[in-house]
């Protein structure tokens, strides 16, 4: 990326070298009424890493991401991002600090044009030049979106909508990109393209935490992964280890 967020403070020096933890979650617990959706999970994502969070329906993957951007209240635990505690600030501030979420199910704005969708991704930015450059970067990342700028978001195909959702998140110039099931309901070929784009985003220095049901695809792109099962971390390790793990193979790879 050529430009920086003009309002974002430079990252804390202690965390600036690659390999240090950008995000550290400790004993995170979330309750919906009487149900414990997350039963004290701990995970970390280092700067520059791509980490996958895999698991089946209802394991708590979406809850984890939503809690990170403070859309869901944690019952207990700490969320540290670049050395700062996130549980004490609101969603707006979390996003301002450089965390972007691509919500589940291609949550775009269907009646707004592609351009309006993307511009909303830079909602917290004020600098026009930065926004224009972000838009340019997203067009380079997804040329298809560039061709459909004046089109309404809802008229795009499923894969294009997912590209739009990711493009919109990238308009916020995140340091940490959170993706919730980017391959959900998308043709396999397009899903692969989306993951290629995620790889490109990571190559540009953005740290990525991706939640995915498509375990193989996710672990191909990620260097490490966590397996979430009924609100607990069941396994963690490098992608290679997880792909070889008998439990993971049986439960999530169908091998």
């Amino acid at each position: 990326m050529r430009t920086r967020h003009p309002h974002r403070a430079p990252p804390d020096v202690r965390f600036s070298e690659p390999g240090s933890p950008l995000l550290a979650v400790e004993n995170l617990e979330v309750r919906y009424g009487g149900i414990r959706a997350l039963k004290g999970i701990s995970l970390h994502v280092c700067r520059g890493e791509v980490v996958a969070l895999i698991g089946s329906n209802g394991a708590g993957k979406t809850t984890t991401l939503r809690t990170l951007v403070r859309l869901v209240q944690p019952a207990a635990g700490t969320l540290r991002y670049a050395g700062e505690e996130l549980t004490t600030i609101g969603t707006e501030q979390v996003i301002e600090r450089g965390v972007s979420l691509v919500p589940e199910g291609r949550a775009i704005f269907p009646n707004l044009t592609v351009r309006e969708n993307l511009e909303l991704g830079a909602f917290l930015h004020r600098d026009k030049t930065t926004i224009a450059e972000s838009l340019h970067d997203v067009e380079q990342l997804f040329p298809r979106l560039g061709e459909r700028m004046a089109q309404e978001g809802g008229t795009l195909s499923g894969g294009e909508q997912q590209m739009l959702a990711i493009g919109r998140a990238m308009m916020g110039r995140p340091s940490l990109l959170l993706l919730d099931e980017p391959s959900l309901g998308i043709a396999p070929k397009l899903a692969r393209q989306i993951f290629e784009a995620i790889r490109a985003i990571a190559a540009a220095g953005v740290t990525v935490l991706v939640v995915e049901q498509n375990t193989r695809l996710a672990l191909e792109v990620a260097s490490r992964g966590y397996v979430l099962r009924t609100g607990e971390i069941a396994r963690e390790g490098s992608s290679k280890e997880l792909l070889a793990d008998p439990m993971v193979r049986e439960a999530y790879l169908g091998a």
Partner: protein
Amino acid sequence: MRRVPAVVLFAIGALTCVGLDLAYDGLVSWDRGSKFWLHILVVCAINVLGATSLNVVNGMAGQFSIGHAGFVGIGAYLGGAIVSNLALALKIPVAALKDNLSLGQSFLLLPVALVVVGLVCAAIGFVVGLPSLRLRGDYLAIVTLGFSEIVRLTVLGISADSATNPLTRAIASLGGSLGYRGPKVGEDYLGVPSVAGPFWTVGIAALAVFLALRLKRSGFGRALRAVREDEIAAAAVGVDPAKYKVTAFVLAAAGAGVAGALLAVQRDGPGIVGPANMKFDKSFEVITMVILGGSGSVSGAAIGAVLYTVIFYASEEALHQLAQAVPAFGSVDAAALRMTLFATALIVVMLVRTQGLFGERELFEKKADDGTPKPPSPSSDDATGTAKEALAS
């Protein structure tokens, strides 16, 4: 096309409105019959204000308020009370207050009244909107419906006999089912003065349309539309849904209040503010205007309001003429006929053109690309091909 500066637009608009106001007086003194048409103009303008303000919350923010009449009613009572009491306090002769006040005199009374009404209604809107808009879904519809009924029944239910404390006495002074007729002067009621001519009504309606258009095109308007489309996605880009929904609701409440105040003190007005202003059919009327015109479109809401008002009076007049020719038509209930007419119109709109006349578009605005007839793109099989090079630079 060069953009005309806002100040120039403003000056032209203000002068036009003064001209309209003077023309109104001139026309009426020349031909009493023209009063009817001028009355329609004034009501059109007030309805435009009502519809434009409702459109901010129902159309732009996508939250369904069905209690707009509650705020219109509060504005009407409050506006009527402030203007009549202020007129007495300023020692405007009672005889003069029985007739239309001049444009000059209206400047003494209206600015204060409208600002106070706007602020009070905004504050009430905040109290009503805050708890209901933090929740998702249809809570707002239920709460607003309940709210307007509570206000109406409170005014209706407290009579002078049952008033025991200052609060109930104040509510009882609003006249209950008889309506508010201004403070008592001697034996008689003063009546709500007729102050607001075309200068105020048309002027404020035009200002409201102008501001609503600006709002829609601003970052605020875009945030509202984002909330309407998908609250989670809006939150994910840093738009706080509750904050924007409540602000939209507060703006709508303030607009409704000002519309109500203008309704109460309109020139050649009825001189009385009745609780019927707050009935559910009044809320339904405004919703009809917005939906007919196209939810989310400012010009659509305005045109919907004008259409509605014109059809309203035209059907009344047609029925009146018909009844004179064929006496049997004299027994037709005009209000029921109108209800049938507009209900049918709404059904037709829902069947033929769900999005209303304009959809979300504005008058003279280009249609968004619907995307179907597209030449095949050279890069469509390689959507991320240049991604690496682009990001590496």
